[in-house]
């Protein structure tokens, strides 16, 4: 059933693919943090239209599949605009936007936990809006939510295979290509499955350590673990 020799042959092909998967995970995560902050801050804007627009965008993105969003960005956007990004850039943008909406909820809970007095104090000190956010609110809002953010790093990692639909040559697509060349599917898919399992288990163990160490025993965001 299991052909170790064949499995060993596969490894050289998986190495660069693993690098792509990790690269997409990290870039996607950084974009998600960035978009998450933008959505969270815009969601608290004093201007009602900005608030409304930000919340609608978040709602829409959260309610539709990442796969279809990736298709839209990869196939539709170049036909509507002169912008045609390659698969990697499109893929991480899709991941960033999609998980940015989840991240904005995480940040929102962190921001809400900052005592009202801090806002009032900033006003009393005549700090600008920008200064208030950057020097007062965010430094207090972000550290408590870092473990939850870490969970999303794992979630994004697990979602990268979706990007094979837009020709990103990551682990799963590599497994598929190998399988179609040899008609042996068991080894490539099993190796990739175990790889994903191992990486995300190790990661979540690390995050749990982090959580304990910081002793923020907060519950995870509702339903937000995917």
């Amino acid at each position: 059933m299991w052909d170790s020799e064949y499995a060993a042959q596969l490894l050289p092909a998986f190495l660069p693919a693993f690098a792509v998967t990790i690269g997409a995970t990290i870039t996607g995560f950084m974009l998600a943090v960035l978009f998450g902050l933008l959505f969270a801050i815009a969601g608290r804007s004093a201007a009602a239209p900005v608030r409304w627009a930000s919340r609608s965008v978040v709602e829409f993105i959260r309610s539709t599949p990442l796969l279809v969003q990736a298709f839209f960005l990869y196939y539709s956007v170049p036909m509507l605009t002169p912008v045609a990004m390659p698969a990697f850039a499109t893929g991480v943008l899709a991941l960033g936007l999609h998980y940015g909406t989840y991240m904005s909820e995480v940040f929102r809970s962190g921001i809400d936990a900052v005592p009202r007095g801090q806002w009032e104090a900033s006003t009393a000190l005549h700090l600008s809006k920008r200064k208030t956010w950057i020097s007062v609110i965010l430094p207090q809002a972000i550290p408590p939510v870092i473990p939850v953010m870490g969970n999303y790093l794992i979630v994004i990692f697990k979602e990268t295979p979706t990007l094979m639909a837009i020709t990103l040559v990551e682990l799963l697509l590599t497994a598929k290509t190998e399988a179609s060349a040899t008609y042996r599917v068991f080894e490539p898919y099993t190796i990739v499955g175990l790889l994903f399992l191992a990486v995300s288990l190790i990661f979540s163990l690390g995050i749990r350590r982090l959580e304990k160490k910081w002793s923020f025993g907060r519950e995870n965001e509702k339903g937000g673990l995917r």
Partner: protein
Amino acid sequence: MNAPWLDWLPMLLDGTLITIQVALLSAVVSIVLSALAGLGSLSRYAVVRLISRAYVELFRACSLLVLLFWVYFALPFLQIELSKLMAGVLAIGLNIGAYGAEIVRSSVSAVSGGQREAGIALNLSGTQRMLRVILPQAAVRMVPPFGNLMIELLKSTSLVYFITLSDLTYEAMVLRNNYYVWTPYIFGLLLLIYFLISSCISLVSRLLERRLAVWR
């Protein structure tokens, strides 16, 4: 030029029905698994606790798409042959069920404590306590996160496209093959349809929440 929207409707409708079918079936599988593994995590038997925890940890760590590929393409090599529909429902159900189990576990343990003691004081048996006292209260807490989870489930049904099950996403790709120049509209419409179905799910979840809140 106007997009031939009307010509697309029959195929999109077919696809929507398949998507809903996959979603409903995997919802059933995942809810059953959530209840079993969620309550199992709180069982007084160590073996049951262990199995429940192993299931939750394993399937939460698993990438759904990789799992789907494995179930559909690799399992036949172990002589387990599933149809596309079964493979999709099983993979999605197993994956979402692991998240649902955590919701069940945390909601039940949140109401336990004092309520449990009150139940004992009233001379209720273990089963009675669970069914009459703890579960109804836990259910109220579970509804909103389960509503979110079902939206996640709906979104993940789009992955069955990869095993060429003719769901909404796949039918849109077939449409694209027939109406290539309308690609942007086809994908735009596809996003919109998913958004509508998601909105229905959150509506139902909110109604249910209100219903249950009355009992509280």
